[in-house]
């Protein structure tokens, strides 16, 4: 049995450990970004009294003449076409609903879906009109901040390490064993409840700890970063990845590899 107690260690500011040269321009709601009126205003900003003011807390990003503020931690804002993973909390209680849906979906079930439309109050309507969406079977859910999920062409990844992952834009990450027969299982509404093999479980647990490490160090989540982190974590035992110093070490190595890959 393992038991470790320790004294707390003060957190180091991230910029020191990353070694970034250019400092980010951080703003809070109400801060003036610029008084130059030539810029176009993007997300997270508004025009007031002849100057551009930030409406969210985050870092300022400038693309030519467009200024926007990227929030560090946000509630999820739906966009049409986003992939989301969601949990059913409540359902409409009508007679047809009872007869038709209850056989397939219960409260507490997880589903993957795509955003069809966004209402003005922020609510989204979802559809599962493709075989790759639908009820999710056995696996592990990790909840992270939506701002850490990178927008990509596809959010369904079959990682070479042996598991698959769905990176929901709403911050819900679903890790599951890669189904062997893709045609049958994808989108099926009856979950496979057979025990998952120990090897697959180890891969899934390792991935889960890797994702949690990346999130604590505020690294963007996408298939490459998760894969590099998985490979960097292989020398350590799965449960050792829960320790703060090992988390830092693994994420540092991942960051190095990502920088090398870009440069």
């Amino acid at each position, binding site marked *: *049995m393992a*038991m470790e*107690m320790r*004294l707390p260690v003060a957190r180091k500011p991230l910029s020191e450990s990353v070694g970034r040269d250019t400092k980010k321009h951080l703003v809070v709601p109400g801060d003036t970004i610029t008084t130059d009126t030539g810029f176009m205003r993007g997300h997270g900003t508004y025009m007031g009294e002849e100057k551009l003011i930030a409406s969210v807390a985050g870092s300022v990003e400038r693309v030519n003449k467009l200024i926007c503020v990227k929030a560090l931690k946000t509630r999820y804002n739906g966009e049409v076409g986003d992939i989301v993973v969601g949990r059913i909390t409540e359902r409409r209680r009508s007679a047809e609903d009872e007869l038709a849906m209850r056989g397939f979906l219960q409260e*507490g079930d997880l589903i993957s879906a795509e955003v069809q439309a966004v209402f003005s109050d922020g609510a989204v309507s979802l559809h599962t009109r493709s075989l790759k969406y639908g009820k999710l079977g056995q696996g592990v859910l990790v909840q992270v901040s939506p701002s850490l999920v990178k927008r990509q062409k596809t959010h369904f990844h079959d990682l070479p390490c042996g598991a698959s992952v769905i990176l929901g834009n709403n911050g819900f990450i679903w890790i599951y064993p890669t189904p062997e027969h893709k045609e049958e299982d994808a989108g099926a509404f009856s979950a496979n409840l057979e025990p998952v093999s120990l090897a697959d479980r180890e891969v899934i647990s390792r991935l889960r700890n890797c994702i949690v490490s990346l999130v604590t160090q505020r690294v963007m989540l996408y298939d490459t970063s998760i894969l590099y982190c998985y490979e960097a974590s292989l020398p350590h035992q799965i449960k050792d990845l829960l320790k703060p110093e090992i988390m830092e070490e693994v994420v540092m190595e991942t960051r190095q590899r990502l920088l090398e890959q870009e440069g």
Partner: protein
Amino acid sequence: MTQGAWGGGAVRAGATRADDVRRAERLGSMASVALSEAEKVYIVHGVQEDLRVDGRGCEDYRCVEVETDVVSNTSGSARVKLGHTDILVGVKAEMGTPKLEKPNEGYLEFFVDCSANATPEFEGRGGDDLGTEIANTLYRIFNNKSSVDLKSLCISPREHCWILYVDVLLLECDGNLFDTICIAVKAALFNTRIPRVRVLEDEEGSKDIELSDDPYDCIRLSVENVPCIVTLCKIGYRHVVDATLQEEACSLASLLVSVTSAGVVTCMRKVGKGSLDPESIFEMMETGKRVGKVLHASLQSVLHKEESLGPKRQKVGFLG
């Protein structure tokens, strides 16, 4: 939610069987998460194979962070983080009159506040039931002669004694509340400094209590025999230690075992709607004793290490 809160209040006056069942059901799923059937099956199968969702074995604890002396205007305080479960305990020593049936002893009073910060279920009166239940468990654990030397808290028999008000604040809840709370209470009691007082009697026989001038002249409590709780959750055919919220949702019954550093069981309680057969209870108790000894040893070494760093140690506190 309000019905539950009223049900909890009624227990004090005259509990009905229905109230008890409702209360037991609610406590069986304290601050719970919703899980799908497939997720529960995955967790249960994993536990059978000794590989939990985060890679731990059935008897592994998550990393614990302990810091004492975090609140300056208390006699002793401690903050403990176990995973995302965050507990803050403050101890205040005040002078009062001893209880009638125990005139030579001081006593401890426990109060548990489930802050709404921990989980939305604790909003308003929602956390009161859980708070009272935890406080009652703490009273039960400390309700024996050897946990804390209560005679050392006596100033003058039948007249003055020290009362230690132990306040527990739940800041964040991520499963395994009882273990964390007990560790924090033990650490806070270790950190408690009670001012040394002398009773002076003058010629007419009236007593005067004199406080020593030196602010560092204090008496400390011996926490050698303060027990710690080990919660064992029954999941499938095995039991796990230090369950996360998701694992607690898959477990129908748990056993709370209160163990001292010598491995002696002081009290035991079963929570949850499910049943436990006697063999399981015996196995779980043995695991609890084994795990409890290691827990005490780790806690002692951390507390002594912190103390050896002296008053110049860098305090991390809440903004670290």
